[in-house]
């Protein structure tokens, strides 16, 4: 029997067996940031351990940095201490750090691929659940906790058990204005927030093959929102073209050997998956979440479902509670709902293609009165490119705030928060209660849909807004 891509990567990283069902796996890249690493470094120090492979460890500052000023103290005293702790730990252990003075600093899951640190066939870990993003390159990438961060720092390995495999097959062509964000929201809507628990998901099919690397990253990024341990996409010509010439990608003397290895990284034709789901890309419309978890999602023109329409007790109760929190009622259309805040950013949707898609909607238009709209590019590289292409100017002319890179309003660890009761169109990944601020009401959408909401002052099907303009 053939192997799945996941199984190939897993088996090629087994250092040894720890006991009957647990293997010790080697980690190729360990990405760290300020929030989930300080206790791990303290633990190392307490036990007198060193960082085994500082050359395979890379750090950035992203979660609680200010996006208004490049200064360690700009997001408050406790944030400053945490950022300084990261700088001191990286200095002590000789770990490369993209700090606030570095021109390429940014969100950890944006800079990994951008710097060429993310490559096919690797195991990549980071103390952040959206590490699944890197699976877009055919790397096994997953989020870990702080105890595990300490374990990887000390040994460059991690104890693991084999996960089950889930195949998500998406064939067909995406309609105009339907993006990878809409695809992953539709998948989560179908599978549920816990449908992937215990699985590693591999996305395949013609719709995936047709996606850019950035689109694939958006897709894999939100694999965790259906509970999957990781998302994976087999590398292909698109992947290799993206990586070529990146700072940390294999250099000329190794390039051909690397590509030839990467070409072996796909699920065998006779590989058996534990579960398979499939979607027709042409049937997907622009999506929007109406509730407080990402599976509570509809096409933007659909009415909000009635709690009674869910046959499962659990889902019915969750819907009731969500409608109450969100200040919405069954049957209502979100296209009748005004928005207060628009956030374009996060490790899901802050890359150059996301900003281009949003800017094409915003061009020659104005943000509706009373709407606060901000664009937070994912990294210094994205920011510079957007400025060179004139996108930043389009956003600023329209009335958007143009910020410095960071995680920002996705989780509101800095001062970028949504006030209680306010409704936010957000390109981020989680619409949990209180995620963007206590009492904040988050609706997850694509960058184009968020831009359209900013212009219209309410949710609107971007296809219709664009249609009206043409």
């Amino acid at each position, binding site marked *: 029997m053939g192997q799945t891509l996941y199984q190939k990567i897993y088996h090629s990283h087994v250092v040894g067996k720890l006991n009957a069902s647990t293997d010790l796996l*080697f980690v190729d890249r360990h990405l760290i940031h300020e929030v989930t690493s300080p206790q791990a470094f303290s633990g190392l120090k307490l036990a007198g351990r060193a960082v085994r492979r500082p050359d395979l460890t890379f750090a950035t500052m992203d979660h609680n940095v200010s996006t208004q000023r490049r200064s360690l103290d700009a997001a408050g005293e406790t944030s400053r201490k945490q950022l300084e702790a990261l700088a001191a730990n990286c200095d002590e252990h000789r770990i490369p750090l993209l700090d606030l003075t570095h021109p390429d600093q940014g969100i950890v899951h944006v800079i990994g691929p951008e710097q060429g640190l993310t490559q096919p066939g690797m195991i990549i870990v980071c103390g952040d659940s959206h590490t699944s993003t890197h699976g877009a390159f055919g790397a096994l990438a997953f989020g870990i906790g702080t105890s595990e961060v300490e374990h990887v720092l000390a040994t460059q390995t991690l104890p693991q058990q084999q996960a089950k495999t889930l195949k998500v097959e998406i064939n067909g062509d995406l309609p105009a204005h339907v993006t990878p964000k809409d695809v992953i929201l539709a998948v989560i809507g179908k599978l549920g927030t816990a449908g992937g628990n215990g699985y590693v998901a591999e996305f395949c099919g013609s719709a995936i093959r047709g996606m850019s690397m950035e689109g694939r990253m958006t897709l894999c990024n939100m694999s965790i929102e259906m509970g999957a341990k990781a998302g994976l996409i087999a590398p292909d010509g698109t992947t290799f073209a993206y990586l070529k010439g990146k700072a940390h990608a294999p250099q000329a003397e190794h390039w051909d050997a690397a590509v030839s290895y990467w070409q072996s990284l796909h699920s065998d034709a006779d590989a058996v998956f534990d579960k398979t789901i499939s979607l027709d890309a042409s049937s997907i419309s622009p999506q929007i979440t109406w509730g407080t978890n990402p599976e509570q999602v509809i096409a933007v023109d659909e009415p909000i479902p009635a709690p009674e329409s869910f046959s499962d007790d659990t889902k019915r109760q969750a819907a009731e509670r969500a409608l109450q929190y969100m200040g919405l009622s069954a049957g209502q259309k979100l296209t009748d709902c005004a928005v207060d805040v628009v956030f374009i950013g996060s490790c899901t949707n802050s890359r150059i293609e996301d900003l281009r898609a949003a800017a094409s909607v915003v061009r020659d238009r104005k943000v509706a009165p009373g709407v606060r709209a901000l664009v937070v590019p994912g990294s210094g590289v994205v920011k510079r490119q957007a400025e060179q292409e004139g996108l930043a100017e389009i956003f600023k002319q329209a009335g958007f705030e143009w910020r410095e890179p960071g995680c920002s309003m996705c989780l509101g660890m800095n001062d970028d928060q949504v006030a209680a009761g306010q409704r936010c169109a957000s390109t981020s990944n989680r619409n949990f209660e209180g995620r963007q601020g206590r009492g904040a009401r988050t609706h997850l959408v694509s960058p184009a849909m968020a831009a359209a909401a900013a212009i219209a002052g309410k949710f609107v099907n971007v296809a219709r807004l664009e249609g009206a303009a043409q």
Partner: protein
Amino acid sequence: MSQIFKQGLVCPLDKNNVDTDQIIPKQFLTSVSRDGFAEALFYDWRYLADGAANPEFVLNYPQYQGASILLTRANFGCGSSREHAPWALQQYGFNVIIAESFADIFFNNSVNNGMLLITLSKTNIELLFNRCAQGPQQWQIDLASQEILFGNNAAMGFNIDPDIKQRLLSGLDFIGSSEQLNPQIAAFEAQRRSHLPWLG
């Protein structure tokens, strides 16, 4: 063989999909310490906007003060990888969580802190909530025999991964156990350098 892992008062949290943003909101994540998170547990549910205890949240009910076993429903701990979530639960006093299912990263993080997470069928979870509805419950968790003991010889069995059971029973050092494979790690690194030299 019997070995009581925990004996204590049960607090029923009748919710599905409790995410880590609810378990501990982001404003508490700027700490560089591993301690001091008990007060932050379930912050937005536990306290009103003015900081007073919310009398409608189950953790604040007088009969559940001192609870050390948390009973909840499906997909507990979904969301971020923040280990602050199990730290907050443990520092509050919960060393055992019983649920229909857990999110993977949260599950690993909890085990790495020596907590016991018990997964039961939806039917059995319902039976346990029914018990709680009859009044405050004191249960014993026997890890060796894999049973929840209700008293009066009533019990409910549970499954647990044998490796995790062994770790919890013997208190194995997470990093130390792996370090016993240091020679294999070094051999793996050497082999990787020769076969896939671009990986470093």
